[in-house]
């Protein structure tokens, strides 16, 4: 991940960096590109220097891998998925063996109430409180975890801290409810806030988009659905207008060829950029990946991909922040990531996938917020694509027919 230096943080970000207390619970909300993950790691670095034993929790393996290359920011701070952390914590601090309890036997949905009971029981004496001490937990993409997690953390923290466990247990959550991935299994801001027992002094709001250019932000905002963490304040930085390429789909192969040809030419000319190619369907991801590999293999440009279904395309093999690379990834794994340039392939499929309008727009909002400098949406000329683009003013993008 390309991390801004402290010198590049803005006033709002600096106020959080400097003003958020190192103890207790802190909630930071903000729309895409406002620097939540950046703040998470700069905060982790500071907490590490203050010996608060910070640990960053990411939503999935791709994000975890993504933040593993973060320059010199918090290099020693451990990054884990919630599942991994919960497993380790349970085993090391609470029970010593076995898996943490899960809801109805589901492997990835922990029963946080049961975990909480066990942890509090353990924390009643000071030796146990020392054992459950997780230091300072920094949870990114906090909207994608259930409210019961926050209740558990707050209650265990209260008991363990009362027993004098040092450093004091603390939690920082960074969230955006407009980017929820799993309807029904996540939290809105109010739920997080209530469960963390937050006072107003520990609640921070990032509003300004630092990732994208004004032109990209304006384009993405056409898909904003309007929840509490809000639409970011448009960035002042200028950039190229997004490009919308309409491509006739005589056959799927011709469509993908046209997309791959353009992407390959761009990658060849801009050899210092990190390019993301986002697809909606896994089959398209696979086809584009193969085509780009064939075109760019001899040009010293790395083409990589991730699929949970493919053993050879592991998240841990992905190299982020790699100039002269093309990462082909499915939209479900794209949240939280950013690239210099993003080619978004056939997002009309979001509509044809049977998602509701709201979900399709929310997904489009997330995907269009990924690029730092340039966005190229590559659309099949069909009714779904036209439906998706109907609310977007032609004045804010350039149109081309490939």
């Amino acid at each position, binding site marked *: 991940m390309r991390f801004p230096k402290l010198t590049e943080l803005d006033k709002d970000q600096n106020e959080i960096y400097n003003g958020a207390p190192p103890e207790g619970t802190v909630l930071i909300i903000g729309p895409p590109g406002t620097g939540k993950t950046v703040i998470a790691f700069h905060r982790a670095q500071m907490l590490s220097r203050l010996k608060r034993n910070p640990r960053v929790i990411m939503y999935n393996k791709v994000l975890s891998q993504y933040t593993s290359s973060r320059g010199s*920011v918090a290099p020693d701070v451990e990054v884990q998925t919630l599942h991994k952390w919960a497993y380790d914590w349970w085993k090391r601090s609470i029970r010593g063996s076995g898996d943490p309890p899960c809801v109805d036997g589901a492997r990835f949905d922990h029963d946080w109430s049961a975990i909480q009971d066990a942890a509090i029981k353990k924390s009643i004496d000071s030796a146990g409180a020392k054992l459950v001490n997780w230091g300072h937990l920094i949870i990114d993409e906090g909207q994608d975890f259930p409210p019961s997690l926050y209740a558990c953390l707050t209650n265990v923290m209260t008991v363990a801290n009362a027993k004098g466990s040092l450093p004091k247990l603390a939690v920082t959550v960074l969230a955006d409810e407009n980017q929820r991935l799993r309807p029904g299994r996540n939290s809105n801001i109010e739920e997080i806030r209530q469960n963390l027992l937050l006072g107003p002094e520990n609640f921070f709001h990032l509003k300004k988009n630092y990732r994208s250019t004004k032109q990209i932000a304006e384009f993405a905002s056409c898909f904003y659905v309007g929840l509490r963490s809000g639409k970011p304040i448009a960035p002042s930085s200028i950039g190229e207008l997004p490009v919308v390429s309409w491509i006739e789909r005589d056959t799927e192969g011709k469509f993908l060829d046209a997309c791959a040809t353009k992407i390959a030419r761009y990658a060849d000319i801009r050899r210092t950029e990190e390019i993301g190619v986002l697809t909606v369907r896994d089959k398209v991801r696979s086809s584009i990946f193969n085509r780009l590999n064939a075109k760019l293999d001899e040009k010293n440009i790395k083409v990589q991909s991730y699929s949970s279904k493919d053993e050879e395309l592991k998240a841990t093999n992905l190299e982020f922040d790699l100039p002269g690379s093309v990462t082909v990834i499915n939209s479900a794994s794209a949240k939280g990531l950013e690239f210099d340039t993003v080619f978004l392939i056939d997002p009309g499929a979001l509509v044809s996938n049977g998602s509701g309008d709201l979900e399709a727009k929310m997904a489009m909002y997330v995907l269009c917020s990924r690029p730092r400098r340039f966005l190229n949406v590559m659309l099949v000329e069909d009714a779904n694509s036209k439906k998706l683009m109907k609310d977007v003013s032609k004045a804010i993008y350039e149109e081309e027919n490939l």
Partner: protein
Amino acid sequence: MTDPKPPSAKRIGSRGQRSAKVEKTGLAPLGYIAMHEINAAMCMAGGIIGPRFEDGAARDHHFSACGLVIEDHSSSKEALSAAFGGLRYGEVVIFEVLMPVQGPCTLPSLPLLYAKRLVFRTTDAKEQFLARFSGFGDIPLMVVPLAVAPEFFSGIANLALPDISPAIVKVDLAGTLNIEASVTTTPTSLMRTIDRCAGSLLAALGTTRLGGHAGDILKGFADLDFSVPEEQAASCFATKFAVIADGGPEANLFAPIFGSVATVLCSGLMDAGFSASELQKLAQPESTKGLEAESKNFKAIESMWSFTKDVLSLRRDVPEGAWSDIGGSPLARGTLFFLLNPEPEQFQVARIRNPNLGPRVHLIAGLLVGLRAGLTRLGKETKEDTEAFLTATAFAHTWLSKNDVSLEYVRNWDPNDGTPVHNLRFNGRQLASATMPTDSRLAKLAAIIRAAGVDVRFSHESGALSFRFEDEKALVTFSLSDAALSIYPRIHLLELIATVESKSAKRDIENCVEVINFGKSKLGISASLENTSNRPYLRLSAYIANDIEDADLTAAVAAVVKSVRQALDVFSIKAKRAKKTLE
């Protein structure tokens, strides 16, 4: 604030005396600048002490606080508030600096080069600073020692300014504080211009470390007239460097392209974002201003812009080798390369990702990258050469302060393998260097001579391969040169030459020549008497086939070394006889 007294005169006076030595080089005794710790960190990151303002540059809004140190017994609250710049968190720190003698207080900023210490109120504040700013990554913390001196802050309660503009208190040699002047205007433009110029210089000259033909480029920068233009100082500064770096016949033809892009960048329009197509639209008409529409120059520039537009819009590929220095104007190519790679982090990997990128094209693109980013935003990699980082700032600062500046070019050689290093210096400090490829033939020769028992070294100043025989008081210098014999004009040979300089008389050298030439058939060495500056010396030489094998060279070296020793023996015997006669 444990001690209410201001810094003691005795303490400050003693520091002033210590720094009196420095005064000779143009710097006055110590002065103090207090500022909010964020500003301090920012100044360190930028190489400049002083506040930093950038209207409209979103990322820098929080740097609206100013540095101040002043002794004034009026309201302390306002002073602290000013130093904090309205920020509710953090600490005030104090820079201890050496002030330039001439008009220091009219200068809104000083290069970090002049900073002596960064002083904190408490150890805890120092630790907090280190923790808080560990994420900066590009703060060269080692360039300014950090110290804890609570007494420095005792005066802060009494420090105040009528406004929040930066002001400086000087400490004279008697150890008393004097408010020499205060600056009443915000130094926005000058600060940014220094930042841009120094950034441009540092990013561009940093490329010379990668070698190539960079040594020749550095040579061109020496002894230039760096007078400051009234307008567009930074843009003119960069264009001047770009034309020199290009060094080709078309440099002046395409200079308006570079200049117009530089002018747009210096306007700040592309500071917070970048659009190559927008930049092209703004720069293109600017670049042909004053040219006749049908003129050759106009057409050449328009044609270059047309190509640029095609590349930017993906209508055409960039031809193979388009980024090399050969076969086109490095200045035009460097400008296009910048348009495609405008960010400092892209620039860092440019040479790796584009192996054909020529040193001149790279350097010219670097001028534009640095001009846009400014020193502050350049990455750690560019600033890791602390000396160059601080010297670039000092150079830009001195130049923009309308002082005479000139760069000095020096060439050195590595004593062991003769690798030439080209250096560009300002005020005796290293600004840039370029290490050129080692001459493998000479390096091999040196190794063989050493193996023959003569511990030769390359002269650091001249690159000559020589050894001084202390007993005989003789300097022997070895070299290789291409040669051809008149009787075999088509056969290329190498001539191994050894010159023996001693205090021997001409007659003794003549005798020596006779002795050596007498044995020529055995050793293949010819000797002659030569003269330099009316001083006679012995020249020994042997011819070797040009496609020499190590064994041939080794044999030739052994023969030459033997002849050298023979000559030195002759000189020695003569010298001893002469001494004996005198006795």
